């Protein structure tokens, strides 16, 4: 009974703000509403006994991704004037796309034979660690290298851009700026 109650509460915590994210006209509000959804999902992981996953969800999504999302939302300028009401042309393509995604997900959920059983309450951390270092060491290292490459790439992109301007242009503008 209590388990059901917890489930319903977590579901509400996840779904209601999710609607808010989608329908809020204020993009910053949408960003903050995402907080609750992400926390709700973390709650589900915990509820299912995946404690490591739950905390990771908090750490990565709330502590990292959400902050980035909020930063992006706050720092980009949303033109306040000229924000049109959503017309049909804006509504139909996303609706079709959403329906397609829903269809795929529904198919997956119904087709896959889920292994239903009691969630194990034993801690998963040590097990995950051992698995990562033994059976899954290759994917683990592979992902590390991909991430490293991404990081190096990002750094190079920034360096490239900052060297783009020619010195002549700077000198010219400095000249112009002088009173």
């Amino acid at each position, binding site marked *: 009974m209590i388990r059901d109650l917890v489930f319903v509460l977590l579901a509400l915590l996840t779904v209601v703000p999710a609607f808010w994210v989608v329908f809020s006209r204020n993009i910053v509000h949408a960003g*903050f509403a995402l907080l609750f959804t992400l926390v709700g999902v973390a709650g589900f992981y915990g509820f299912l006994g995946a404690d490591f996953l739950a905390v990771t969800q908090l750490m990565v999504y709330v502590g990292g991704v959400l902050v980035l999302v909020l930063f992006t939302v706050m720092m980009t300028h949303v033109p306040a004037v000229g924000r049109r009401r959503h017309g049909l042309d804006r509504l139909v393509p996303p609706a079709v796309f959403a329906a397609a995604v829903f269809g795929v997900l529904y198919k997956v959920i119904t087709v896959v034979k889920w292994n239903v059983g009691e969630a194990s309450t034993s801690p998963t951390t040590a097990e995950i660690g051992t698995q990562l270092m033994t059976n899954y060491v290759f994917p683990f290292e592979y992902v590390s290298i991909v991430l490293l490459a991404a990081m190096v790439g990002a750094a190079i992109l920034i360096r490239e851009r900052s060297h783009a301007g020619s010195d002549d242009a700077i000198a010219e503008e400095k000249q112009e700026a002088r009173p």
Partner: protein
Amino acid sequence: MKLMYDFFTGQLGLGAAGANITVAAVMAVIMFTVMALCAIILTWMERKVAGFMQSRYGPMYTGRFHGWAQAVADMLKILGKEDIIPAEADKGLFKFAPILVLLGSLLAWAAIPWAPDFVAADFDLGLFYIFAVSSLVVIGILMAGWASNNKWSLYGAARGAAQMISYEIPLALAVVPVVMRAGSLNPQDIVIAQQGGIWHWNINPITNPFLFIAFFMYFIASIAETNRGPFDMPETESELVAGYHTEYTGMRFAFFFLAEYANLFLVSMIAALVFLGGWWAPFPGMGWIPPALNFIIKGVLLVFLNMWVRWTLPRVRVDQLMHLCWKVMIPVSLLCVVGAGVWMMAWGQLK
């Protein structure tokens, strides 16, 4: 905890789930009370320490003995203040932000083991969990700064968020060598691994010098993580007026205030349990001291150290702060992780 659980199941005849929830509720109330008390005591302590550093007395009158009631009086005063919400503020977010900030520190408090088996939320991922929920504070600060609709607040919030997510990295990395040594993320296990006097504590440079360095990395990062001087970028009263809480008054301001001191004590307690042997007494034969008292004394000493630093050093500039984090502390912390691992392998200390 077990005792309490048994009491509820045995004496009161509650079911397992009911007892669990009751224990959680009781612990939550205890934690919140302790936290609020802590904040009040630490405010008083901050004033006295600042006074001590600055060759003056600090509060002396309220409550007769060394102004002990000053913090209480302040709290009462702050409760009586008008609650002002700026007309152009984003009202919903403005009201919610202080709660979120306080929630972040309160949730983290749950995983602190005060004494053997006395912990509100005892689970294997304790340390990881503490760092994870602290990120709620970042969101709260961003929310406060944005909702205030004040340029200074926004600057404070942006600085705060950038600072806190940056310093979370060396903070967490500094703890990793200890986790490696104890072979567990559970705070209780980490403390138990340090049993047997001061030379068994993780800070002992002879057992593992890298842990000794990690302690200082942790300490510096923890000052930044709590937004206190010399790293008080989000507030910087002389630059940003009061940073992200410029527009807050009364009770809502008190929430930020409470959270600051709760966080201060939190990071100090984590340092105590990770590096300074938690509830163990420093020398054998001192076993008569209650474990919780040992633990609190260590925490308070670290708080004192933190205050000492705050009242000694000037504030760094915001770009220097980032420079320190990304170019000095993160490399050194990474080095500590690798170095500690190699050291433990070499001396066979790995579990």
